[in-house]
């Protein structure tokens, strides 16, 4: 089982790897009790939203927007179709938590979505599943069948008169579909091109109807919040940073994997849980919130706590909670080249600065990496990224620009060295030595 550890875990508590995902096990762990309680005890929509607000659960998809507040934007008495949509299009490099939630605890997502639908007066929902994880999609479909058969979703749920139909939609390979409005376009059977906002999905979402989109982990947290109470959840973390959160740790640590820890836990503790640095090498840099988050030098990171505010103070963002750890064998130019390629490749192509700018940035970083850098290239990169940031339809533009900006800021010397010497500051023979690949 890839989920490796937790401190005060909620979502991960009592899981039994691939054996414990099914309805029977989820119910044994206390699953669907909250949905039943809400429907049978006639808990009101306001009360549910109130509890979520109290928990200060912040969206786990990347932007960290308070979930309770988002839910309150839904015109819940508005007649006609309304939708809740779950974002399991986990494609942000370094992030692999939603896959494990869906794999080991899919019913928590279903229960969370059903509760959310009830709270917002929605009768239909979709879970958009990342294209590359077909087996997980199939498992979720199986879980949906179970939940439907048991009457937790469908018509007249638990005899309450509340209807909620939930389906899974399988993506097919496009990072941009993680952006919520392109995700909606994609469900509508179109290219995943983000929409300009306003209007926001709460007023004009899926098929033009009011829609709320949350991340998988956000939804999965809901039953637990209602179980222990919003206040308790908040107190697990720290002020303005409620609850526990999954961190996907990848890169040069001994035990990459998902770790559920209270927000506010020191990074050093997390690193320890991962068994420390692979091969005992020195930590060079950490991208603490998925590849779109600015990179942070290792020593700064060692003094940082893992929560929205803490990481923001360190000059980056918590993002999706993907912690990419790099040791001293990493060439930062090569690392950035790969990330820049990703954003160039994944730009939807719709708006000018992103389409042209991501390609341009990649080309420049690529030529620096290949020993063809020119003096002035770093200024050029800063100029180009400046022309992208804040000028695009969706946040992919910023997501592409921030890594470049932060790599140049913290590791500019390596880039200058590349340009000047047409070679790497990290000696060739140790480059990527930390990868742990069994050489043959």
């Amino acid at each position, binding site marked *: 089982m890839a989920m490796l550890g937790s401190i005060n875990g909620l979502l991960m508590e009592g899981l039994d790897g691939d054996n414990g995902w099914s309805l029977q096990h989820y119910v044994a762990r206390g699953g669907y009790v909250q949905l039943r309680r809400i429907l049978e005890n006639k808990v009101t929509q306001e009360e549910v939203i109130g509890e979520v607000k109290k928990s200060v659960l912040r969206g786990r998809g990347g932007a960290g927007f308070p979930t309770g507040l988002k839910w309150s934007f839904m015109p819940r008495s508005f007649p006609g179709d309304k939708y809740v949509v779950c974002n399991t299009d986990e494609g942000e490099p370094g992030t692999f938590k939603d896959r494990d939630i869906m794999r080991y605890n899919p019913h928590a997502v279903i229960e969370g979505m059903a509760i959310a639908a009830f709270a917002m007066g929605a009768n239909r929902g979709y879970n958009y599943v990342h294209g590359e994880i077909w087996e997980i999609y199939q498992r979720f479909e199986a879980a949906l069948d179970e939940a439907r058969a048991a009457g937790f979703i469908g018509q007249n749920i638990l005899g309450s008169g509340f209807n909620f139909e939930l389906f899974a939609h399988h993506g097919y390979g*496009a990072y*941009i579909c993680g952006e919520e409005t392109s995700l909606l376009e994609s469900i509508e059977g179109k*290219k995943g091109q983000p929409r*300009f906002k*306003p209007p926001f999905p709460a007023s004009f979402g899926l098929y033009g109807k009011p829609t709320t989109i949350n991340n998988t982990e956000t939804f999965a947290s809901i039953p637990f919040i209602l179980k222990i109470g919003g206040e308790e959840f908040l107190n697990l973390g720290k002020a303005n940073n409620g609850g526990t959160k999954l961190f996907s740790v990848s890169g040069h640590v001994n035990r990459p994997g998902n770790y559920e820890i209270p927000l506010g836990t020191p990074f050093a503790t997390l690193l320890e849980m991962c068994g420390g640095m692979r091969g005992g090498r020195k930590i060079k840099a950490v991208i603490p919130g998925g590849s779109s988050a600015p990179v942070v030098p290792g020593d700064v990171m060692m003094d940082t706590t893992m929560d929205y505010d803490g990481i923001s103070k360190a000059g980056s963002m918590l993002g999706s909670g993907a912690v990419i750890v790099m040791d001293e064998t990493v060439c930062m130019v090569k690392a950035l080249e790969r990330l820049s390629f990703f954003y*160039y*490749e*994944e*730009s*939807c*192509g*719709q*708006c*000018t*600065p992103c*389409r*042209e*700018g*991501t*390609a*341009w940035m990649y*080309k*420049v970083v690529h030529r620096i990496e290949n020993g063809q850098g020119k003096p002035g290239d770093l200024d*050029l990169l800063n*100029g*180009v990224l*400046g*022309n992208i940031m*804040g*000028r*695009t*339809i969706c946040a992919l533009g910023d997501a592409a620009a921030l890594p470049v900006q932060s790599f140049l800021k913290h590791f500019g010397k390596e880039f200058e060295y590349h340009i000047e010497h047409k070679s790497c500051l990290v000696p060739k023979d140790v480059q990527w030595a930390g990868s742990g690949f069994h050489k043959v």
Partner: protein
Amino acid sequence: MLEIEIDGKTAQVPDGSTVMDAAQQLGVYIPHFCYHKKLSIAANCRMCLVQVEKAPKPLPACATPVTNGMKVFTHSELAVKAQKGVMEFLLINHPLDCPICDQGGECQLQDMSIGYGPMKSRYTEEKHVVFHKNVGPLISMEEMSRCIHCTRCVRFGQEVAGIMELGMANRNMHSEITTFLGRTVDSELSGNMIDLCPVGALTSKPFRYTARSWELQRRKSISPQDSVGANLVVQVKHDAVMRVLPRENEAVNECWISDKERFSYQALNSDERLTKPMVKQGGEWREVDWNVALDYVAHGLKDVSREHGGDALAALAAPSSTLEELHLLSKVMKGLGSSNTDFRPRQKDFSADSKRSGTPWLGMRLAEIADLDSALVVGSFLRKDHPLIAQRLRQAAKKYTKVSLLSVGADDQLIDFHARLSVAPSQLAVSLAGIVKAAAEIKGVAAPSGTEAAVVCETCKQIAQSLVDGEKRAIFLGNVATQVDQATQIHALALELGRLTNASVGFLGESGNVLGGYVAGTLPSAGNARQMFEQPRKAYVLMGIEPEFDCANPQLALAALKQANLVVFMSAFKHAPALEYADVMLPIAPFTETAGTFINTEGRVQSFNGVVKARGEARPAWKVLRVIGNVLNLNGFEYNSSEAIRDEVIGKGTEFVGGLDNGLNGVTISLSSVGNEGLQRITDVPINFADPMARRAPALQQTADSTAPKARICADTLAKLGLNAGDAVRLAQGNGEAHLVAQLDNTVPADCVRVAAAHLSTAALGDMFGQISVERA
């Protein structure tokens, strides 16, 4: 209302306005590429970024809603920096070879990059090259590297043309505009994409590299080719028409024209132009001087009139002739004692002629279509007969208008219909009667007498209900409704339906100046366009008509013409078949070479001037007719200008003609005569065959709309006839036949064969609607 300040100027704008709307209201120009007022907002080019007070980032003016008290700066440092940044991005992959680009001089990207001053590009990588595409004879996609991905063309297809033929495939910087696997773009409105393209990616194939924009003079004109009277800009170089573009007139054609109107100009420069008067002597055609020809015509006509009486003369004009031409033609004929002048060559049933309360028209203004709650179109190949009206109805249907169609084919109109009925031509009237009856039932009143035989179907009820509901409703009669045998019955039934439901009743109008024909008094009192051939005359004057193609029954028309003593053929083209039966050919000026007036189907009077000198010795027809009048010593032919003729007919300064009224007096409804035996012919007039100009435009003739006629038959009827798709078949009507290929087409009603008119291969056939026989050849 919201208050907004842009660059220090304040405006009040309605709720829901964008910053771009407000800027346009204030006359503040904000650079843009993807924004177009007729298309949905894409906000993808990012050229219109402006600074909004309190917003941390520049915002796109085209997509940002105005909030009350908003302050916008379009020229602040932040805004200009953002705009320049976008320009730089747009230019990195765009070829910088404006001097050789076909769009050079009329390129928004070029204009804007000049506006932002010389910019040395920091981009030193290789430019991305996009492969060219072939999408048919009209649009050139030779230079797709110039595309800036604004998606205007794609949105136009989806939203206005109603068919998504172009799309943007792939993603990231590999995104490219293309059709599906090299298919052609076939929409009848496709040329508008060329106008919409802000750069030189989509250009006009026929125009390409024939002239540079700065060599062209722009002249205003009016299209004769369809009943809306689209406003045109005709671009001219050295007295030749090089290009035709729409001239924006929101009330008429908005900013669109059909491909037929855009590309027909090719005919004006063709070798088939008739440039000298010609007379046939002893079976030989000879070019002669105008005075010889006019003498010949005047005396010829006069002789026939004297020997056989005025009734032995008949004149038939195209409904796209000008008001002035139509007026003078009938005036000359009257002077010769004949009232056999008509302008409705494709009509068969004229029984309404003495019973009209006024001039038949659309029944409303074109712009009002957008406000309709419901509309019923009767008897129309809507999209191809009236591309621009179809477009208005398409837009309306997308909003809230319930549009229904009762017609003789189920071909795709690209309109989201509320309901539609497709019936054989002989059933058109009785089906309409079914709707009338349904409306009477809903209203709880007795059905009009004469409708007893009609059956009320579910669809009839649905349509009737949509016409009863709502406030603004309309019934439109299309070309088919005026061409079938029971045209007057259909008209009367439509009036009954209108009376019951309070819907307006109107005609879509077959050509550019049908109303002009009525207003000019070109109406026959005896020999209408049918009778003049049924009872052959001694002499004929044909103006702008090619009878093989333009008459309801070419067989009948040709027989009559062949037996006549004198046939005067007035045309802009040396029409080869006419060399056989005509005796005189007079070269007359097409609309680009004469002044004149068209009255569109909403009654709008639109006068225009010639945009180029008449070609060769061609002369405006009104002048030709005036001289004939003079030679004949007729009174009242002292006009100095076409305006003088117009003013004589409709008075000075008229914007809309008066007397518009679709009413009928003394027509009784009687469905008893409806016959439905045997196989019936359904005839469409394909858009690019519909008039002499379109027929001679090579590019148009290569489009999908111009494929040679086939015998289109539905599966059941094919089986019944023992035929297979692809069989060579012989069609016969009267004593004429046509050899075509049978085509499976399930949009054709049972027991019918759809055969296009206006093509040589079908010119020997008889009535457009009526019985026909088909057998394997």
